[in-house]
């Protein structure tokens, strides 16, 4: 069988990650000339399977109530072994990452994680992913079906709606309760409880900010808009404009955000030592020769006082248009 299956484990909604997953699944299925099926396990809202049905040919719903890893895996195994797909795709949420290799093993297939691209190459499936801490790109060929992959699905384009939505089937496979592991408590953390080292987006200010007020009046609202945490360079902390807990750098916190927005920061190596693992660095600085720009993905040479208020407006507008 050549079908492609996408799996949503305990989804809260048909979010961007799920949409991208469906898009990737559909494109792969098209290349294989096959169907796109979806397994929705323990959806948190009854509307979700219907949304999935708009993009998938078949939707199989398995409701096990509160998610537990072992029963979920058993159910997935049972359903997937009946479907016998060529590929099974997941998003990059915790449950998916955890389940992927185990499912592959149970189905006699092969797994790869953190996939950014899936390709068909002469009857085999190949995937592309970053390795060596993002320094290199690897292409991996899966040797035995099914290919079980968890992906950075948020960055995939979504699928088009079907003219006729797919069928929704509800299954209740007979899965015994597994007493060996049990989730007994779940907690969602708000942004402000997050540690700086865990923040995905950081807005950081340097000596060029000039004083404590702009941190509060300009940078903080910008950070809130981006769901970001605030940080600062040593100079700003030394000058007492922000507490020392904000300090990022050689003698400060080492952060690993997806986006580090450096505002009025020169980018001396001691500061850069704290953000060497940042995936994207952007800077606002009046000095075009500032070392920070050598490490940036993008940036603007301009006084932050002119940029930040305007930037906030633009971001709000963009966020609204995405809804």
């Amino acid at each position, binding site marked *: 069988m050549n079908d492609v299956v996408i799996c949503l484990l305990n989804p809260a909604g048909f979010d961007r990650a799920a949409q991208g997953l469906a898009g990737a699944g559909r494109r792969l299925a098209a290349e294989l000339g096959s169907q796109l099926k979806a397994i929705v396990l323990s959806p948190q809202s009854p509307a979700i399977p219907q949304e999935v049905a708009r993009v998938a040919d078949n939707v199989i719903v398995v409701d096990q109530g509160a998610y537990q890893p072992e029963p979920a895996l058993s159910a997935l195994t049972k359903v997937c072994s009946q479907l016998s797909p060529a590929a099974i795709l997941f998003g990059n949420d915790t449950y998916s990452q955890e389940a992927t290799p185990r499912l592959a093993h149970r189905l006699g297939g092969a797994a790869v994680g953190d996939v950014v691209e899936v390709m068909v190459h002469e009857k085999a499936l190949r995937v592309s992913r970053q390795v060596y801490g993002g320094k290199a790109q690897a292409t991996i060929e899966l040797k035995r079906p099914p290919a079980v992959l968890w992906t950075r699905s948020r960055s995939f384009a979504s699928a088009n709606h079907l003219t006729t939505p797919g069928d929704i089937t509800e299954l209740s496979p007979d899965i015994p309760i597994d007493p060996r592991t049990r989730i007994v408590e779940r907690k969602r953390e708000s942004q402000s409880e997050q540690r700086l080292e865990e923040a995905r987006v950081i807005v950081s200010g340097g000596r060029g900010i000039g004083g404590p007020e702009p941190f509060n009046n300009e940078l903080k609202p910008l950070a809130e808009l981006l*769901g970001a945490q605030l940080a600062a360079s040593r100079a700003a902390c030394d000058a007492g404009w922000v507490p020392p807990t904000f300090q990022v750098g050689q003698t400060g916190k080492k952060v690993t955000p997806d*986006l580090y927005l450096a505002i009025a920061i020169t980018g001396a190596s001691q500061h850069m030592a704290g953000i060497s693992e940042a995936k994207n660095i952007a800077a606002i600085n009046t000095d075009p020769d500032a070392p920070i720009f050598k490490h940036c993905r993008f*940036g603007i040479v*301009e006084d932050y006082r002119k940029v930040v208020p305007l930037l906030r407006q633009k971001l709000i507008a*963009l966020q609204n248009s995405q809804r």
Partner: protein
Amino acid sequence: MNIVVCLKQILDPEIPAREFRVDAARREAERGNANLVTNIFCENALETALQFRERWGDAKITVLSFGAPTAEDSLRKALAMKADAAALVINDKSSNPDPLTVAQVLATAIRKLGSFDLVMVGREAGDWGAGQTAGLLAEELSLPCVSFVDRIEAMNGGLRMKRQTDSGWEVLEAQTPLVVSITNDEHNVPRIPKVRDVMMSYRQPLTQWTLADLGYEMDDDKYYEVVDLSIPQKESRCEFVTGDTLDERVESLARRITEVTSAL
């Protein structure tokens, strides 16, 4: 309680990007000037095991590695951190065995070590980052698996653990035997071994096995194969946003920012 902690020795992941080179023919990174270090998540796992023993007592910690002969240094360091025993399965066959091979070899070695209650593995390695060892190992040993754990406590009849999720955390209760993968946390920063212990560690016994000793036939490329490895040509040039007016440039900046944040 018998705990097995699996360690992987890798090339120092923090060498400057400028010095990172890839051997395209062999599809692996070049050693260059880089040192060999223990994968940080494996050290977090060892630290978690050590703290568990300190808190709950009476646990024997064995560290196990499947790697080149140089992996002995990682095991010695673990002994210096006061692991009780160490075993090395020498890999003289393939420089980058696939995750299934690794899991099968480790499973065979673990069974040979004797009975065990808990297997702890780092969540992923700093080089290939496959993140599959814990899951595949659990399947090979027919055990349940809990991933991204950062804290473990003993509990009546089992273990209680906290694991990180993308939105927060969860607490799980589990029975032994069990496989867990460990992620880093402010509490499991690996301890610095005392110098005396480092000196002593080289005099402690260390079990060494070949694949033949384990009776394992390596059959690489049955699971997956790395067909290409390259360094992407990164623009080292910063993209300065364009536009005739300030408004246009900031609009461009806002778009670039949104591109990144919406993919999260």
